[in-house]
């Protein structure tokens, strides 16, 4: 007997199979050869940078860092579908999208070290600094999107969270608001399978995270997050829809983080098996996209080496710039609290300086 209480899983979008062959020719995005090469370049660059950042964190040269390897397609191909004037509201892992959206890498490093200047996003760069509170950016994305709508600007708010983040009340509220007001927003849930240690199956009974869009009355789609072209195709359509005033979209990218949750003591061997890790490595986003590009003679070993070299150099350069940036100070922190410093805080600043003179 059939039941009316069946949940309907959203469809799973894939363009390239893990061996790099095209599985769905109709969905191949309209990207020039240069754009395809650029997207690959960004992914290789980011993998290199991530590996360096992990080492630097271990050496104590960076502070807070959440590794990104495995999620390059999910992160970079989605950002690739935006325009410079679109606004990104990132979670704490979404550093690469912000950097390719214009955030200088040295500021990302200062952010990692806990320096206030890290979050001082340059004028003209359309991002917020990475959000620490899980899901808080989702509700804010609706606010940013509403501002674009009210001002009549053809811009889109794009926000990221993870599988865990889709459990937060803020997630449902943000997505629902966007639907209710028909806002130009794109919500990307990067389902990397574990919220620190908790697997998706303990996070929700929903078969997909994309189907959480159904209750909000907006389109929800699940995409192979290890497939750069699929992520691009889906995000591009969502961004175009939003820009055209057709409302928000929820995208679930099915992906995996190879590394620990963050570099602050998480040990993935406590909650996942080597077998599972190998299973995901077979679907690696870089390998897959490289094979596709090689089949079209668009990527060579020297392109690969160039991207790696550039990644390394960029990190070295950014580190140098971060090192030479003036140290943050408590008086500066006090000054930064209000447009005009209240008398009490002025007094506290004096008090602070006096108390630190004693040895």
């Amino acid at each position, binding site marked *: 007997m059939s039941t009316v209480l069946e949940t309907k899983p959203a469809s799973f979008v894939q363009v390239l199979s893990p061996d790099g062959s095209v599985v769905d020719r109709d969905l191949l995005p309209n990207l020039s050869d240069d754009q395809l090469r650029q997207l690959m370049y960004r992914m290789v660059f980011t993998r290199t940078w991530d590996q360096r950042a992990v080492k630097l964190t271990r050496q104590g040269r960076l*502070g*807070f860092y959440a590794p990104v390897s495995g999620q390059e397609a999910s992160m970079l191909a989605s950002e690739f579908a935006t325009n410079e004037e679109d606004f990104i509201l990132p979670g*704490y892992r979404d550093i690469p999208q912000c950097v390719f959206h214009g955030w200088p890498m040295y500021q990302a490093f200062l952010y990692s*070290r*806990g*320096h*206030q200047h890290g979050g001082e996003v340059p004028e003209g760069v359309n991002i917020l600094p990475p959000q*620490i*509170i*899980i*899901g808080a950016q989702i509700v804010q994305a609706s606010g940013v999107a509403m501002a674009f709508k009210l001002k009549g600007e053809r811009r889109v708010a794009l926000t990221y969270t993870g599988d*865990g*983040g889709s*459990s*937060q*009340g*803020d997630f449902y509220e943000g997505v629902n608001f966007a639907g209710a007001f028909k806002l130009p927003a794109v919500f990307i849930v990067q389902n990397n399978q574990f*919220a*620190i*240690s*908790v697997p998706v199956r*303990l*996070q*929700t009974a929903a078969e997909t995270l994309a189907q959480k869009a159904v209750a909000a009355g907006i389109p929800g789609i699940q995409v192979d997050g290890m497939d750069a072209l699929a992520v691009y195709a889906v995000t591009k359509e969502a961004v175009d829809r939003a820009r055209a005033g057709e409302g928000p979209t929820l995208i679930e990218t099915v992906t995996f983080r190879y590394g620990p949750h963050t570099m*602050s*003591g*998480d040990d993935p061997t*406590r*909650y996942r098996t080597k077998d599972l890790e190998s299973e995901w490595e077979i679907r690696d986003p870089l390998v897959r996209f490289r094979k596709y590009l090689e089949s079209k003679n668009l990527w060579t070993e020297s392109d690969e080496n160039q991207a790696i070299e550039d990644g390394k150099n960029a990190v070295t350069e950014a580190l140098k710039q971060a090192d030479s940036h003036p*140290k*943050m*100070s*408590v008086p500066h*922190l*006090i000054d*930064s*609290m209000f447009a005009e410093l209240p008398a*009490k*805080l002025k007094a*506290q*600043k004096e*008090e*602070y300086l*006096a*108390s*630190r*003179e*004693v*040895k």
Partner: protein
Amino acid sequence: MAQMTLIQAVTNALDLELARDKNVLVFGEDVGHNGGVFRVTEGLQKKYGVNRVFDTPLAESGIGGLATGLAIQGFRPVAEIQFFGFVFETMDQIAGQASRMRYRTNGRYHCPIVYRAPYGGGIKAPELHSDNLEGLFAQSPGMKVVIPSNPYDAKGLLISAIRDDDPVLFLEHMKLHRSFRQEVPDEAYTVPLGVANVVREGKDVTVVAYGAMVQTALKAADEWAKSAGIQAEVIDLRTISPLDTETIVKSVKKTHRAVVVQEAQKSAGIAAEVVAQINENALYHLEAPVIRIAPPDTVFAFPMIEDEWIPDVNTVKHGLETVMSL
């Protein structure tokens, strides 16, 4: 007796209470299989099963609401907020709901919940992990707020908190997590809520502190005694709400001078309340104004400068010098 870190003492208290009372439940993000991000609940799911020690979805408001619902049905939830800065997400469930349940239902329901959370500066955690938000809860009627400064107290206070019939916020300072060990009895024991502890006796000045500031105050008092020959009496509040006014006032009547040290930013906090209690109960015994030693009224400093922002031994000594010279 075993030498335990504060973390081990907390684990031990949870273990003993889970064993003693089948209504005690332990849950939160990553507390089950993974044993918590600080390993506080290590091994407990294996020992007591997934129905009593479990992972929740990633949703602090959900955790808070779950605790309230379980509590009014007779359970004693021990809910973990992974980092105290995330508590804003469940502020309503704690301060707007659980703490008012007894009042709202005229005693028909009550919420014997413990909310455990790591907090406090000095370990260079990212934003909204270290914040000292205890004052918000000390200002929430119906809540008790407990902050141990050492492993022995942590175990005894947590057991008291779990057995208490009202909601208790139990904060574990991250800098104290593994910084030192202490003799901790193997069996269950309680340290009463709402009772401060005189951790250093002295006749010249009273220093009131709690959490990690107790260690800082003790160190400053010892150094000051050596260099200036002045004996400070140090009081560890242990519970910041309800406040043990009696112990504070008794000490101030003896020393006639006081400073209050807190890691939270200066205004409208626990230190202000302590000063008010001294004013109301011992004003005519004072020889100098009571001063607060606390960071300025800013957001909790970013990791790069948190050590400069948080009061240290020198700032406490500076405060002592000030109050002795008045």
